[in-house]
């Protein structure tokens, strides 16, 4: 910025354009990510330290939070991960756009956004029940339950299909 002595890091797409701004591009944020197979894991709280032992090195400097263009409490969710609290990690990190600004500045070399991603996936997979309606519908489709109805509708003339469509639109759920 004109008149400023400090170099700032930010996301171009998340920052308000201002007069006198000078932009230099950093093409990407390099980051290590361990591989894991979620099918072989479970909802054990120790999973965070298993794949990301470096989170124990967090010195609570809060640089990650200050760097976040989404105003997330990044350090807080790393602390939640240390406690194995999936729900808190998922909630606190949900708006993360994975830009990597947190990881670029962390003195402990934590890759915060990968930690959060693991937390949200475990939360989504193991801490939510299977959705009942969805289970039923998937089973119906696998049993070819709708084949006959499809055959009928796809065999209609254009005029007939238009009539059905117009009628269906009048019986719609709005809110």
């Amino acid at each position, binding site marked *: 910025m004109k008149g400023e002595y400090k170099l700032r890091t930010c996301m171009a797409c998340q920052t308000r354009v201002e007069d006198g701004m000078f932009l230099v591009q950093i093409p990407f944020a390099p980051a290590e990510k361990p591989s894991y197979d979620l099918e072989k894991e479970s909802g054990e709280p120790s999973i965070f330290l298993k794949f990301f032992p470096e989170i124990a090195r967090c010195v609570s400097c809060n640089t990650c939070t200050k760097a976040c263009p989404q105003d997330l409490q990044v350090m807080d969710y790393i602390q939640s991960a240390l406690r194995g609290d999936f729900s808190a990690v998922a909630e606190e990190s949900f708006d993360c756009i994975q830009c990597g600004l947190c990881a670029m500045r962390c003195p402990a070399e934590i890759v915060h956004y990968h930690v959060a991603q693991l937390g949200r996936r*475990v939360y989504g997979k193991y801490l939510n029940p299977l959705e009942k309606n969805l289970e039923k519908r998937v089973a119906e489709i696998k049993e070819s339950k709708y084949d006959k109805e*499809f055959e009928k509708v796809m065999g209609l003339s254009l005029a007939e299909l*238009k009539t059905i469509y*117009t009628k269906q639109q009048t019986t719609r759920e*709005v809110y």
Partner: protein
Amino acid sequence: MAKELKFIRGYPEYMYESIRLVNKTRPKRKGKLLPQMTPKEREEILNLCHPDYVPGGKREIKIGQNKGEIAPNELVDLLEAYPLIESKDIDLARIDWTVDILIIGGGLAGTSAALLANDNGIPADKILLTNKLRHGDANSMMAQGGTQAADRPNDSPVLHYIDVMGGGHFTNKPDVVKALVEDAPLVIKWLEGLGAMFDRDEEGNFKELTGGGTSRRRMHACRDYTGMEELRVLRDEFRNRKIPCLEFYPAIELLTDQENKVAGAVLWNLETEEYKIVKAKATILATGGFGRLHIRGFATTNHYGATWDGPVMAYRAGAKLRDTDTVQYHPTGAAYPQQIVGLLLTEKLRTSGAQPVNKNGESFVFPLEPRDVEASAFIRECYIRDNGITTPVGLRGIWLDTPLIDIINGEGTTQKSFPAMVRMFNRFGIDMIKDPVLVFPTLHYQNGGVETDPQGKTNIEGLFVAGEVSGGVHGKNRLMGNSTLDCMVYGRRAGIYSAEYVSKGTQLNVPTLKHTEKYIKMLKDAGIKEERKSPILLPDYRGKATLARMIDIF
């Protein structure tokens, strides 16, 4: 010096005067909606106001598979342009990567294709995903509203099918639509298993919403970050499996063999400007759309790389396009402040209760018509009835009355359901929870593209398509929540069927650029001068003053 504008709550004083009228009529409008248009009224307003239907802006395609068909000038310009490379400049004897499946484009479609190809027997190191920008730098990432899947008891894939056909004015390919709606619940199930966090109620059931032209509530959302949540989960899985991935490596031309099968592509490194050759038994195009062509001068919701590269390359190889004459303008693009003009304000706002109103605070249209109809109604209100609000730079728009969302659904709903949007407006001092926001239609989506079949195959052997680049699924108008769905249904299908195609023992001859030589001859025979090259890869926003003094010194 121009007179300094006074601002109230982020808006110039004169615009806020109009907001006062909106505030005044709000209690009366709450819970009261104008009736939906009849089919006849819909047709009339489309003919009157929709940019696709009004004259001008289009011309006939002179060469190739779709010769004689009409498309927007911006698209025909790219089809009637010369390739970036000529075969004499390219050493095809030196192959840089030999793989089974090359995927061009890493949004939801390309990433899904990679995962399903891998699930279906193609080892990770025999797949290559290449990106023009970064992996995930795609329109998918910016999708906000939701993904349709008919899974509630009062709904069915057949009802979904009828909505899609009607929304597309019955021009869709029926078998392609059937696959879309039947796979939809399977896609949601797949994502649930991978740990994607869809909005749920206290009991853990999905919270589902409706959309324009959608007869049942079947929109699965992840706040207003739906596409981002879906893609970051799939990308995480992709990275877990260590599937090779290139970034800043756009494809600039496909390769074909003697039998005209697609045999890979020529890639170009954006940084070093060197080319690389990929030989592949199957190639999946998942390059997305064309918002950055700014058709008819419209602002766009699309990301920086949406420049229609895929159809341009496929067309030269002989692929058939369809429905390229229609363009989707999303009704609610931001119209103020200037820095965010054109950016998407999700349809989910209207499905959650926000109403469009004019400068006098009056409702003028049912909030959830199909997108083309709704957008046309906004254009009529601004430019024919003159009931729009003019911004300080002279753009017009209408209000989207967002404070109704909290009034109808309870305090805190907007903050919880639309965190990205609240954040975006806050940067400009605007509080969308308390004040309405200004909107105008914005260029959003290519309805058509490279013609696909239910397996993601094109008319060219070895070439598959998935997602926005493909045509046939949405006919001449797409409904909300069907694009992320299209990407994943057809990404998965392209992955499965390209794996099957490869496993059958497909043999390739030597890759060549013969098809581009043929295409160049066609261009010359049609009298098209060598003044344009394509694909353009990136849009150019330099102003006239800058271009006037530009010199090429390298």
